[in-house]
C-alpha cells in the first residue's frame, strides 16, 4: 500500500530527525510504529501523508496515492462547528453536495457511537467523544489508508480501551490499512498485526516484528507474550 525508502529528513533547525528510514505497509495491515517520545514518529506519519517532503528517499504508494485519513493526537476539531460539520469537513472541501455529505457524515458519526450528537459542539463533548468525532471525520472521507498519531495518548485508560476496540472493529469492517503511531507497548501489542520499533536521533526502524495470532483480548497469553517481545525489542533499540 505504502512504502518509505531511504528517508532522510532534517528539521529547519538543522537537527537530523530521520536517517535512512525504510519500511512498508501492506494493504489491509494494521501496523504500529512504536518508539520513545521525540524519535520522529510524527514526522514519519506526516511524510507518509505527503504533508512533508523528505530531504532524501521516497514515499511511494502501490496504486497511486490512496485516500488518506489522518487522526491527530489532539482532536483538532473546529470549535466553532458542531460534530456534524466537523465530520463533514473533508467532504465539504471536496465540494460534495450537502445532502450526500450530511448522509455520509452522520453515518460516520453513528459508526463511532455518536448518533444523536450531530448538533453538539466540541466543548459540549467529553475528551473521548471529541476523539470519536475526529475519527468520524477521517472515516467520512472513506479512506483506504488511515494514519493515527498517538490518538489516545490524552485519554484515560477506560476510554482508551473502548476506542481501541472500536478502531479494531472499523479496521475489520472496512478493510482499512492502518499505520498507528504510539508509545504504548500495551496498546500496540493488542491492536496491531505488526510492530515497527523506532529509535531516536536520527530516527530509524530497528525492529520489524510480526505479532502472533491469538491476541483476542488485552490479557490473552499471546498478547502478554507480544508485550514481552516488543518491550525486549524496544529496550535493545534504546540501549544501542
Amino acid at each position, binding site marked *: 500500500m505504502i512504502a518509505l525508502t531511504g528517508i532522510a529528513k532534517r528539521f529547519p533547525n538543522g537537527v537530523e530527525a530521520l536517517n535512512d528510514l525504510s519500511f512498508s505497509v501492506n494493504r489491509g495491515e494494521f501496523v504500529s510504529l512504536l518508539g520513545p517520545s521525540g524519535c520522529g514518529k510524527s514526522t514519519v506519519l506526516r511524510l507518509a501523508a505527503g504533508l512533508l517532503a523528505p530531504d532524501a528517499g521516497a514515499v511511494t504508494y502501490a496504486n497511486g496515492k490512496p485516500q488518506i485519513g489522518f487522526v491527530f493526537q489532539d482532536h483538532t476539531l*473546529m*470549535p*466553532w*462547528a458542531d460534530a456534524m460539520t466537523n465530520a463533514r469537513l*473533508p467532504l465539504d472541501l471536496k465540494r460534495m453536495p450537502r445532502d450526500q455529505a450530511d448522509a455520509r457524515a452522520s453515518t460516520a458519526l453513528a459508526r463511532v457511537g455518536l448518533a444523536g450528537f450531530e448538533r453538539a459542539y466540541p466543548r459540549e463533548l467529553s475528551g473521548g467523544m471529541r476523539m470519536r468525532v475526529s475519527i468520524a471525520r477521517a472515516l467520512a472521507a472513506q479512506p483506504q489508508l488511515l494514519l493515527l498519531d498517538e490518538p489516545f495518548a490524552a485519554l484515560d485508560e477506560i476510554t482508551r480501551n473502548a476506542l481501541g476496540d472500536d478502531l479494531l472493529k472499523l479496521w475489520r469492517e472496512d478493510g482499512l490499512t492502518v499505520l498507528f503511531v504510539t508509545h504504548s507497548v500495551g496498546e500496540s501489542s493488542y491492536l496491531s498485526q505488526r510492530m515497527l520499533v523506532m529509535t531516536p536521533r536520527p530516527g530509524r526502524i530497528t525492529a520489524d516484528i510480526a505479532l502472533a495470532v491469538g491476541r483476542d483480548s488485552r490479557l490473552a497469553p499471546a498478547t502478554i507474550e507480544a508485550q514481552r517481545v516488543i518491550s525486549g525489542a524496544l529496550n535493545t533499540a534504546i540501549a544501542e
Partner: protein
Amino acid sequence: MKRHADIILPLAVAALLLGAWEGAVAHWQVPAYVLPAPSAIARAFADNFGSLIEALASTLAVTLEAFLAACVLGIATAIAFSQSRLLERTLYPYAVILQVTPVVAIAPLILIWVGFERINLALVIIATIVAFFPILAGATLGLKSADFNLIDLTRLYGASRLQTLWRIRLPNALPYLLSGMKTAGGLALIGAVVAEFVAGSGTATGLAWRIVESGNRLEIATLFAALALLALTGVVIFAALSLLEWWLLRRWHESALQAP
C-alpha cells in the same frame, strides 16, 4: 440575582455621586461657570435637546462610517497579510507607523488635502485611521493562529487557499476580530471627536464642536450635557459590540460561556 446587582450597584453609586455633587454645589455656592449642578446640566440638556441630538447624529454618523470603513479595510488588509508573508513584512511597519503617529498631528494635513468643502469625508478618514489598527491587529493574529494541524488536514483533502481561509482561518479569527472591533468602536468615536476639534468652528457640527462652542461661551452646563451624551454614546457602542460578540461566540468560545 447577580445580574440585578450588576445593574443596581453602579446605578446606586451614580445616584450617590450625583446627590453629593448637587449638595456640594449648593452648599459651597460654586459658580455655574466653574461647575454646574447636575440639575442645571439636566435643564441645559432639556433646553438644547434638539440641537444636541442633531450634533449627536452628526458625530454618530462619522463614527459609524469610520468604524465600518476601518472594519472593511482592516479585515481586507489582514486577509492580504495572511495570504502573503512578503506583503505582511513589507507593509506591517507602515500600519504601525500610522498607529503610533498621534492623529491630532495628521488631522490638519488630511483636512487640507481633502478640503473643507468635503469636511465629512475628512472627518471619516481621520476617525478611520484611529480605528483601523486594532481591527488589523486582531484579524491578523486570528487568521495566523489557526490550528496548524487543522490547516494540514485541509491540505490533505486538497483544499484551495480560499477554502482554508473561509472554513478555518476566518472562523478562527472571529474572537480576535471581535475583540479588536470592541476597541475600534470606542476609538472611532474618539477619532471623530478629535477630528471635529481639529476642524474647528463653522465647519464641523458634531458634539465635539458643541463642547468647544459651549466652552467659549462659558455655557458650562451645556458643555457637561454634550460631554455626558458623548460618554453615553461610547458606552452604547461598547455594549452593542459586546452583545454582538456574545451572540456570535455563544455556542463555542470560552469567552462567551457566560451571558454578558
